[in-house]
């Protein structure tokens, strides 16, 4: 339970960090909060040759209004800061609502917003929520920067579109459209544990109270965030009655997801949870959209 030896660099500027990433490429791992990477190293499941510690990069720890609305979050912002930010609560309430579900306070004190997303754990809350909110990801390397959508960023199990020499430096959460509600729910065996199933929803109503747009994105049911596209397609143009929501939840659980079974929950149980949670979040998001 001790990590293997590695070379350690602690740059204090982003430029220096990007130089290390460029110089060491595949051998290097960026160290953000370390709340997933260090346990993995303790188990020796990960044995990076080089760690580039990003904790000295104060320039990547910020929460500020994004140009054009919404909120812009530096990748090295602690999860606890995001949880406590009034700006996030106002501009990205779905993120605010989700933060307490992430592990425990001790983990959130150290874990970072960008580190969580770049780790892309299929059981993690933020990738699903970021997908539901159409977050945009800014990746930077020594040779320049590029923007990625959530669909582009999350590639597979623990795999993002980041190149070995790239760092995730910023995440922009766009503002919710008018008359939009949101909700997040998950079921775990104990508070703070990995969720058996979780789901984030947004619902936008038109002026006649019908569903104009909806997103329903699951965690823990696949290798990355899974969007229930057939379920939400069935909601478009509908009055969001309990019946319409039930039908959509049924479609989501039966058709949109292909959840794994393991010792924590069988396939059947995960589908059951997926349906129940979909009903709850769609109903809550709809109610919130009506209050808008």
């Amino acid at each position, binding site marked *: 339970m001790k990590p*293997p030896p590695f070379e350690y660099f602690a740059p204090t500027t982003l430029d220096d960090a990007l130089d290390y990433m460029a110089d060491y490429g595949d051998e290097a791992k960026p160290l953000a909060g370390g709340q997933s990477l260090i346990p993995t190293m303790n188990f020796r499941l990960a044995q990076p040759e080089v760690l580039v510690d990003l904790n000295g990069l104060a320039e990547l720890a910020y929460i500020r209004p994004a140009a054009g609305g919404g909120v812009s979050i530096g990748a090295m912002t602690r999860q606890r800061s995001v949880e406590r930010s009034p700006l996030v609560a106002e501009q990205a309430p779905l993120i605010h609502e989700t933060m307490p579900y992430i592990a425990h306070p001790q983990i959130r004190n150290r874990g970072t917003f960008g580190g969580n997303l770049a780790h892309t754990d299929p059981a993690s809350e933020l990738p699903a929520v970021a997908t539901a909110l159409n977050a945009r990801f800014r990746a930077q390397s020594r040779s320049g920067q590029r923007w990625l959508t959530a669909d582009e960023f999350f590639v597979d199990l623990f795999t993002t579109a980041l190149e070995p020499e790239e760092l995730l430096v910023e995440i922009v959460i766009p503002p919710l459209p008018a008359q939009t509600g949101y909700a997040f729910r998950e079921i775990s065996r104990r508070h703070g544990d990995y969720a058996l199933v979780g789901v984030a929803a947004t619902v936008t109503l038109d002026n006649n109270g019908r569903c104009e747009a909806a997103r329903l994105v699951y965690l823990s049911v696949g290798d990355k965030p899974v969007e229930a596209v057939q379920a939400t397609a069935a909601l478009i143009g509908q009055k969001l009655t309990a019946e319409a929501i039930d039908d959509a939840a049924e479609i989501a659980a039966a058709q949109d997801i292909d959840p794994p079974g393991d010792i924590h929950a069988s396939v059947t149980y995960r589908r059951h949870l997926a349906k129940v949670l979909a009903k709850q979040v769609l109903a809550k998001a709809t109610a919130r959209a009506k209050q808008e």
Partner: protein
Amino acid sequence: MNTLHTITVIINGQSYEREVEPRLLLSDFIRHEIGLTGTHVGCEHGVCGACTILFDDEPVRSCIMFAVQANGHTIMTIEGLTPDASEENLHPLQASFREAHGLQCGFCTGGFLMTLLPFLQENPNPSEQDIREAISGNICRCTGYQHIVDAVKIAAAKMEGQ
């Protein structure tokens, strides 16, 4: 690979300078290099909470940080709670744990106390739900938690009176 790094860390108000290998865990540094063995190592992968310390005043798990990352930072361990280690001067949190039987074997207790100290400073009047949520990252195999929750309630009352 085994380049040593010189770090300076303030622990419980005292400054220490040591040379460390990058792979040395902060928990092992505190226990083996500094000799403060009140920080316990349970699971060594960030699940049990026994190794919780205050890092720049915030509770974190010291088994999933490297000692080299503590360079220039301030740490408080369980030993810092009662600097003279005397029974008369127990911190109200410690006294409350004793009063309410908030421990049996005591292995997890240091982690609980380091989690609870900032929690009670921020939430002087916590509800039972608040308390249970605050300690959700700390595992105790003896008490069933009820006596720990009782102890926190007593501690909250004591600390508020101060």
